């Protein structure tokens, strides 16, 4: 089955187009020409060995939370502690200590029941709601398309977790800035998720999970090339693509031999176990309204001018425009 090998892909497109090569420096670690980097995950190839999961833990373990116990009592009582520090070996879902897990889906291919293994982690949305809606700026997106949270600023309010269509960010209580502020009254720790090995990318290295995979499941490169390659594979195998359009587009593109509805039916979903359902662009409505914001001042100014013109032409016709002027602003906040 022809597919671009990791080495070839890197040599052919990544190093050339996006210059992950150290020579271009860390800031150049994007897809070239301002294009983000995306990853391609060929679901057919994954054997579920979890080498990637282990590599992620080994590489990023130093970023994991190290909470201090006992945790400060939080008020009101409905605020629950999210404590994964005693469950650091959980690998069958996303946790603050496990940013990548292998999801299993039982599907039927050519009349035969087959188990697919699907590496799941943050999708690195093109327009990530977790980043854009973070009230503090603790979440950030880099021009190379990855999003990550700053553990020094995050207060653990889990807003990112609620707005993420895949419930990816996971909270750990007892760490972070909130401890230095009002730990009983505001905040609840720090949110954690895959940061797409931003530090390795900046050094010109591959994300650990990509490098460790013995089957070459993942490739990384400029988004347009990754999409083209995903479409080529999908065409070739009569397959399906997930992540290209979901939530307005993501930088994580899955190619599957079976429809994603089937994968959804054949797998378990819940907290920390993201689905593969269609996802509307969550930021779309707001961004469309932003266009209305351009029109609003024009409408306001137009209303004022036309009102004044009417008042000037015939004060009798429009008394309010002049009559209320002495009151102007009196009881406005």
């Amino acid at each position, binding site marked *: 089955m022809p597919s671009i090998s990791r080495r070839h892909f890197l040599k052919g497109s990544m190093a050339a187009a996006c210059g992950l090569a150290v020579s271009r420096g860390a800031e150049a670690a994007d897809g070239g020409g301002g294009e983000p980097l995306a990853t391609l995950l060929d679901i057919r190839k994954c054997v579920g060995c979890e080498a990637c999961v282990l590599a992620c833990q080994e590489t990023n373990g130093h970023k994991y939370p190290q909470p201090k116990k006992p945790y400060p009592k939080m008020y*009101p009582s409905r605020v629950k502690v999210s404590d994964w520090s005693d469950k650091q070996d959980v690998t069958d879902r996303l946790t603050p200590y496990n940013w990548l897990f292998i999801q299993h889906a039982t599907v039927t291919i050519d009349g035969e029941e087959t188990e697919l293994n699907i590496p799941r982690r943050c999708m690195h949305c093109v327009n990530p709601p977790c980043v854009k809606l973070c009230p503090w700026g603790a979440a*950030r997106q880099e021009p190379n398309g990855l999003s990550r949270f700053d553990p020094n600023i995050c207060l653990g309010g889990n807003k990112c977790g609620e707005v993420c269509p895949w419930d990816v960010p996971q909270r750990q209580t007892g760490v972070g800035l909130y401890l230095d502020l009002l730990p009983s009254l505001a905040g609840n720790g720090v949110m954690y998720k895959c940061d797409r090995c931003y530090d390795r990318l900046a050094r010109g290295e591959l994300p650990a999970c990509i490098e460790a995979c013995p089957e070459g499941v993942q490739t990384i490169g400029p988004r347009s090339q990754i999409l083209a390659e995903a479409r080529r594979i999908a065409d070739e195998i009569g397959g399906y693509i997930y992540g290209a359009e979901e939530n307005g*587009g993501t930088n994580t593109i899955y190619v599957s031999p079976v429809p994603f509805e089937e994968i959804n039916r054949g797998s378990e979903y819940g907290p920390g176990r993201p689905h593969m359902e269609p996802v509307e662009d*969550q930021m779309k*409505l707001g*961004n469309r309204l932003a266009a209305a914001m351009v029109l609003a001042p024009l409408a306001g100014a137009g209303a004022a001018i036309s009102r004044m013109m009417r008042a000037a032409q015939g*004060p009798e016709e429009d008394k309010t425009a002049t009559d209320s002027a002495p009151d102007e*602003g009196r009881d406005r906040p």
Partner: protein
Amino acid sequence: MTPSATVLGFPAYMKRLYAFTLVVLALSGFAQMPIFKRYYIADVPGLGWLAQYYVTHVMHYLGAALLLGLVAYAVAGWLAGRPRPRLTGAGAVRAALLVGLIVTGVLRVIKNFSGVYMSADWIVFLDMLHIALVLAYVMAAIWAAAGKKRWTTQP
């Protein structure tokens, strides 16, 4: 045509609309922080939307559009007023704070478009400034209301 001896007034309904806009903006704005659910405010019947981030996001945008419309109305009326009304001290303070709120708000709206990357430091700075300006505006509004201070006077 040039209007002469005409000053744009604000009928009572517009003052109420302005107050309503500020309340919507303040509520939906503070709802951007995860506090309303924690402190049971979203449990009050009719206020459940305060805990739904996409709803409050859109509400804040709608409120901002209203505010921009009202501000443009006032500014256009002020510029075209004959004679042009003079801003009082209390008016100038509130106007400056409003300008700051609008500028930081617009930058945050731009940030939310797909493909717009702002540095983390810049985002944090904008967030903090926007919140600080809101708090300053609330205080200025209370001060102005308590002293029955007007926005403008006739020269």
